[in-house]
């Protein structure tokens, strides 16, 4: 019997448009449903959980749900994208700490923005170029994403908490979040 395997283009060619419009920002994050998209790279889960904790403490978000990609080097599959768009008000995706996964992480953020969901993509600063190149290929050269200090994979849980705290100002900037005085 012949079976067909679906191939996913790592450059996201099917997603390319000239749309450089960000989705509508919510203003306040209080009560919102946050999706965390784990790309399965080492420490992605722990970093995202720490970011979820920060968002809870600083903004009183409503819920946090972790989602997991099945492969870090390609864009989020349509089914998972639709699930997140349906169930969340914003999404944080991490972590791009290699060439392919940093490009895919930035592409995921652009995909969510184009489907109406504010998104924060996090890569390590060693792979900033890969993320920027992907954004340019997507027709979104100024797409704003976060570059965390490299490395991520070797950090302890405590160090990841600190890294998450360092990233929060950027998360709030990208989401256009009001910060409590």
């Amino acid at each position: 019997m012949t079976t067909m395997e679906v191939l996913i283009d790592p450059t996201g060619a099917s997603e390319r448009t000239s749309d450089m419009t960000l989705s509508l920002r919510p203003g306040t994050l209080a009560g919102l449903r946050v999706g965390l998209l784990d790309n399965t790279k080492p420490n992605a889960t722990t970093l995202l959980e720490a970011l979820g904790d920060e968002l809870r403490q600083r903004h009183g978000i409503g819920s946090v749900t972790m989602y997991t990609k099945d492969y870090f080097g390609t864009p989020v599959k349509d089914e998972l994208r639709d699930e997140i768009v349906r169930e969340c008000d914003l999404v944080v995706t991490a972590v791009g700490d290699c060439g392919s996964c940093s490009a895919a992480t930035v592409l995921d953020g652009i995909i969510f923005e184009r489907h109406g969901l504010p998104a924060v993509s996090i890569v390590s600063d060693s792979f900033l170029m890969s993320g920027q190149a992907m954004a340019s290929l997507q027709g979104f050269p100024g797409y704003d994403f976060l570059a965390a200090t490299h490395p991520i994979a070797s950090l302890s849980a405590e160090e990841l908490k600190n890294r998450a705290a360092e990233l929060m100002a950027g998360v709030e900037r990208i989401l256009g979040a009001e910060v409590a005085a």
Partner: protein
Amino acid sequence: MATTTEPEAQVIDAALADFRQMMASDGYRVLWAPDPAPAPDSATEAGTRLTVTIEAGPEACADCLSPTPVMEAILQKQLAGTPYTVGSVTLPSGH
């Protein structure tokens, strides 16, 4: 056969330094050589088009290599402001 002078090589190496560093983080080496000759219908000056070769080191992460269009976009950006352009990118076998 096209060749580059030492100062020309220094310009190219300087332009590609950040790319090299990024690729090294995934265990890859970046080599370059001038294309032997421009295409017959090309206005590109001989020797200004580069063939970039990506070599896998012993610790290379096979799944971590950026997609070729992403690498080409990075290389074009890094070489902007120099007389050089990317002619082709050759990946390690198996990619």
